[in-house]
């Protein structure tokens, strides 16, 4: 009786696995294969073994080595600063929104969520007009003479501003919903024990929303590693390639006006994928362990 094969899991996970194989696994395998080849996107890839990886990782003289190192460095800067902000700011907003006495929650929430709906090119245009030295408000308001998009660290700040403006909405909704679901009696008994709002936040709210935090951290980080539109539109990667993230180099190598260098681009993408994997596995492991 117990030995009988249970086929029902196949009905539940099977359809998705087929979709996954067709639309994610096969293209990814092809991408990994391409990373071991020289390929111009049009003809057939030519196998070169580990050459692309050797060039990218070890050939100090190679442009592609420089691009990879510089792109990776800038990507880490972006991830390292934007991800904490993309977690903390929406968390604070969610906490404020979930305060008992606060009214017009939907109104506040809508204002903060809507920028994420705007196309990136329109959003970039809005912000570049705002940061524009002559026409814009930022310099007029603060009386500074700096051209933000061409001076560090302002170039990064411009990128972070648009990223956060357009990006906190999703996490805010997840946090708000999670906080809303924390049993009210936990807070009540804490209040009786004399715990203030700050202590309540750290001892009740945060532990209660552990999974949403892990989830948003992992997904936000993976998303941040894939960034390219914001730096491309706001600073074009400058000054001095100081905001050129790896994804911009990858896209340029594969899809710019010269003959495509897709083999190297694929190898960079695979390396980026490996980094994302390691970091998200670490995050998941550490957050899970610390909590238990």
């Amino acid at each position, binding site marked *: 009786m117990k030995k009988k094969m249970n086929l029902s899991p196949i009905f539940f996970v099977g359809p998705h696995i087929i979709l996954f194989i067709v639309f994610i696994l096969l293209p990814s395998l092809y991408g990994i294969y391409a990373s071991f080849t020289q390929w111009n996107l049009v003809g057939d890839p030519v196998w070169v073994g580990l050459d692309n990886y050797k060039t990218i990782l070890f050939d100090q003289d190679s*442009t592609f080595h420089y691009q990879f190192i510089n792109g990776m460095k800038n990507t880490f800067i972006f991830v390292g600063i934007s991800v904490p902000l993309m977690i903390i700011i929406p968390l604070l907003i969610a906490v404020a929104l979930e305060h008992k006495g606060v009214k017009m929650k939907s109104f506040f929430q809508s204002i903060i969520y809507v920028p994420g709906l705007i196309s990136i090119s329109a959003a970039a245009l809005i912000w*570049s007009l705002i940061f524009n*030295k002559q026409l814009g408000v930022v310099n007029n308001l603060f009386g500074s003479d700096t051209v933000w998009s061409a001076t560090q660290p302002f170039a990064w700040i411009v990128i972070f501003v648009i990223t956060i403006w357009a990006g906190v909405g999703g996490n805010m909704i997840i946090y708000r919903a999670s906080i809303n679901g924390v049993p009210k009696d936990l807070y009540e008994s804490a209040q009786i024990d004399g715990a203030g709002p700050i202590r309540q936040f750290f001892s009740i709210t945060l532990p209660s929303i552990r999974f949403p935090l892990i989830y948003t951290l992992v997904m936000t980080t993976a998303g941040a590693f894939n960034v390219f539109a914001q730096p491309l539109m706001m600073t074009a990667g400058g*000054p001095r390639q100081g905001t050129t993230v790896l994804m911009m180099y990858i896209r340029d190598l594969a*899809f710019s*006006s*010269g003959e495509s260098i897709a083999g190297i681009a694929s190898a960079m993408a695979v390396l980026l994928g490996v980094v994302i994997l390691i970091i998200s596995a670490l995050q998941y492991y550490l957050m899970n362990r610390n909590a238990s």
Partner: protein
Amino acid sequence: MKKIMMILFVSLIAIGLAGCSSDENVIEFWTPLTGDDGAYMNELVDEYNEQSEQELEIKHVITSDMYTKLYTVMNSGSGIPDLTLIHADRVPSFAKQDLLEPMTSIMEAQSELNEDNYLSEAWTAGIVDGTQYTIPLDIHGSAMYYNKDLLAKYGVEHFLDDDIVTYDEMLSLEGKLDEGDYVVNDALMGWVILAQIQNLGGDIQIDGEPAVNTPEMKQAIEQTKAIADAGLMTPYGEDGYLMFQSGNVLFSTDGTWSSTGHAQVESLNFGVTNIYSFEPDTFHNRASSHLFSMMNNEERTDEKEAVIGDFLEYIRENSIKWAEAGQIVASKEVNESPEYEKYMQSFFTKNEAEEDSLHIYTYEHYPYVAEAIDTYIADLVHGEMDIDEGLKEMQKVVDDKVAEGSLDIENAETDAEE
């Protein structure tokens, strides 16, 4: 809820099936002409289809990312368009990769599609190793706009007397401008530098090898940097294009197509001239060209080719509409007509010297060179980076990309065969 879902599913399937029928009676014509350019081309295509007695219709497909899309269909071998409008700088590498079909049979069928009837720079941009791969639609490229009111304000209208504004003339305004005003912006700076290389008699290749780190390149950048150093160029990172429109910049080095955009600004009183130069007697404007081409496709029937030829001949005779997009129409029948003179860009075909100033780079690895220049030029001209160091890096970037490009793939293939 369940009902809604059922309806959706049924309609989904219906749409999915409807999508399967593909039309054999149209000629798919892909262009990267987004924005207003696409609308002008639509009008041209519609006019052609209306007067045409052919059974096949031209179907204009605008694609915002046409080259990526071309790569994907060429790689998969299906959905290849019948006719394509490509940029001049793609021709050498497309021809080398054997992606293009020669225009030979089309030219045989339509005798007027010949070199004499087009601007020669546009016509020859389609020739690779003696084979004609394209028929030109236009030349479009660098143009320098001037703000008439500002020229008058500073009393320097005489800069334009010989149609050439020189570096010296621009530098003579040092210290004479009101705060917030600038002589020139840094829009399309890469193209300006490419024009200066021609002005200095240089090139971007030596014996087929890319040449970026050259004395001419250095001189061009240094001289342009002198303008920025003198505080006469719009600052790094500022939107020089908008600053020209807002009336704070005497000269804007952008493109022929911008005239329509500038015309939208009522307060802007502007004209067009050549890109600035070193000497009044040597001047160039870096240009590109939109070229009709046929991607290799065995399924393209002779019948289709006949209609394509007919369409190209129609365009040659009737593309005055294209002048409205701000482009320099390549067909002489159009650009020598009196009607064409009312368009601002007729400046660039008004005499032989102007026609000669239009320069299209046809070097195979031009795209890599242009990309390297675009990546570094703002940092170099605005003094963010040492010029020698920058030139060395640029040369290296181009060399490495060329080494990774298809030449090596060919070598690898022959290696494998040996």
